[in-house]
């Protein structure tokens, strides 16, 4: 009999959640569908930039590639892939009534949330980075595009995963609400309201890319520090809210 300890350390709890959810989230259907989205983007971006290659200067090509990344990659691929996995991290457990097997354990809530967030990032980040980085390698010459893509994806994926993780704990219809956030808030409210724009995650991907590539994507002079700090704060707030929500959740 080995049941001496009844306490699970933070590190162990994070590890347990991460391992479990990576396995639960990575279904064949999700993997194939989202890889298809990513590689459709890759094929499309390569086609567009290559078709401009013969007639454009390097600077014009950089502009096309960056705008493509900002308008397609960061509008569709990054938020959707993040949404699918992050909202499902707790959402699937809640919908299938299996959250009880995690909730009713002597583990603190914060590491459980952290583990779920890491799991969502672990599965979504490679699926986003692979096609987006390949598209920059296939289509363009300048290293600044690769660097900016890498940094911007990292910043916004972490933030999207935290926000959508919280959404998955908030409602059983998290994907529809998440799409609503992406389309209405990020696509509409952020365009007409300065405050709305500051809360829109996508804006920080655009400002990061602008700072590194010098291609004009946002109004004014964005700061890289702000582009990192604000999404980092969003992550913190979303994870704390998720912890509180998990604590007060009615579990089936």
């Amino acid at each position, binding site marked *: 009999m080995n049941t001496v300890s009844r306490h699970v350390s933070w590190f162990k709890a994070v590890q347990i959640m991460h391992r479990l959810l990576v396995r639960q989230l990575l279904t064949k259907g999700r993997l194939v569908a989202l890889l298809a*989205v990513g590689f459709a983007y890759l094929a499309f971006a390569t086609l567009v930039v290559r078709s401009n290659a013969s007639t454009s200067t390097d600077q014009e090509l950089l502009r096309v590639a960056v705008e493509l990344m900002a*308008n397609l990659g960061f509008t569709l691929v990054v938020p959707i892939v993040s949404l699918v996995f992050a909202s499902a991290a707790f959402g699937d457990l809640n919908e299938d009534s299996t959250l009880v097997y995690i909730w009713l354990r002597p583990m603190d809530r914060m590491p459980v949330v952290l583990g779920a967030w890491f799991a969502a990032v672990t599965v979504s980040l490679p699926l986003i980075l692979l096609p987006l980085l390949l598209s920059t390698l296939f289509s363009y010459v300048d290293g600044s595009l690769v660097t900016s893509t890498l940094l911007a994806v990292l910043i916004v994926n972490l933030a999207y995963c935290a926000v959508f993780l919280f959404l998955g704990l908030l409602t059983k219809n998290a994907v529809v609400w998440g*799409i*609503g956030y992406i389309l*209405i808030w990020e696509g*509409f409210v952020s365009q007409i309201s300065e405050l709305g724009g500051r809360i829109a995650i996508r804006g920080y991907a655009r400002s990061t890319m602008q700072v590194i590539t010098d291609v004009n994507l946002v109004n004014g002079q964005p700061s890289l520090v702000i582009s990192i700090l604000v999404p980092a704060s969003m992550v913190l707030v979303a994870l704390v809210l998720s912890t509180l929500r998990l604590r007060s959740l009615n579990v089936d």
Partner: protein
Amino acid sequence: MNVEMNSEMLEQDTLSASASDDGAEIHDLGYRKFEGERSGLVGAVRSLSWQTIRSILGLGRKGRHKVFPIIVGVVAALPAVVFLGVAIVLGNFGEGATLTYSELFAFSFTAAVLFAAMVAPEALVRDRRDAMFTMYLSTPLTRVSYLSAKVSAVLIVMMTIVFGPVLLALLGWTFVGSGPDGFFNWMLAFVRLFFGSLIISAVLSSIALACSSLTNRRAFASIAVILAIFGGIISSNVLVGDADFSNVYGLLDPIGTATQTATLVLGESTENLDSPPLLASVDSQVVVLGTLAWFAVGAAVVVFKYRKLEAI
């Protein structure tokens, strides 16, 4: 408990309605046969359609189930309300100086797409996941009539989002004195707006229902709707706008294509707009064919999947 005791005890049971000699009995719990008129297939379709609308809009459920449709409805109606407000506050400055109906369609398309991503999965996916589809097929409903009920429900609620704002604009402009002159012209504008909205709603519904036929998870169906529509919109804009491809590639945008067809129905010109639609320079017949193609592809997927679907 042995049978003998049971039968003896039941002799005293005042609840029993009928009892046989061997002690078996059926209690009369007050159930009654339905003696009223049966409404048949038409009634079944109407009932299923209405229940689907109720489910989609959260009618008869708690307030939180209505929040999402209300938000989407507000976002869809916002442009029309804002322009009407401006017209009322600043006075009559003429229909030409305000938004065209086509522009109103374009303004509310995000809300319409979002609504389609919620509505169609709610209408179709849940029935398959919960095996309700099988139950429906045990009623007078057939696959065709089942789909008719679902399609009509989806189309009706999509029309509230697409037709609602432009109807509001028409009424508003009429109220401030900028509407069509005379009853005939007003009715003509109304009918044109109705059919223009119907075209956009039909294309959106068709794509959304097709995506909802492909998966048994509502979340995936919603994502598929978004990817199909926005993938098309963004692709066409990048191809035509950034990569200087022919404007015909604008047909990859299902909403742009349907809206351009609706514009033709409305008889509005888009030539003088600051940023004319990608398809403005494309031949009208090609645009109409493109709209039909989007609708037909969506409908074909739904029909194909439901013909193959096993009722278990």
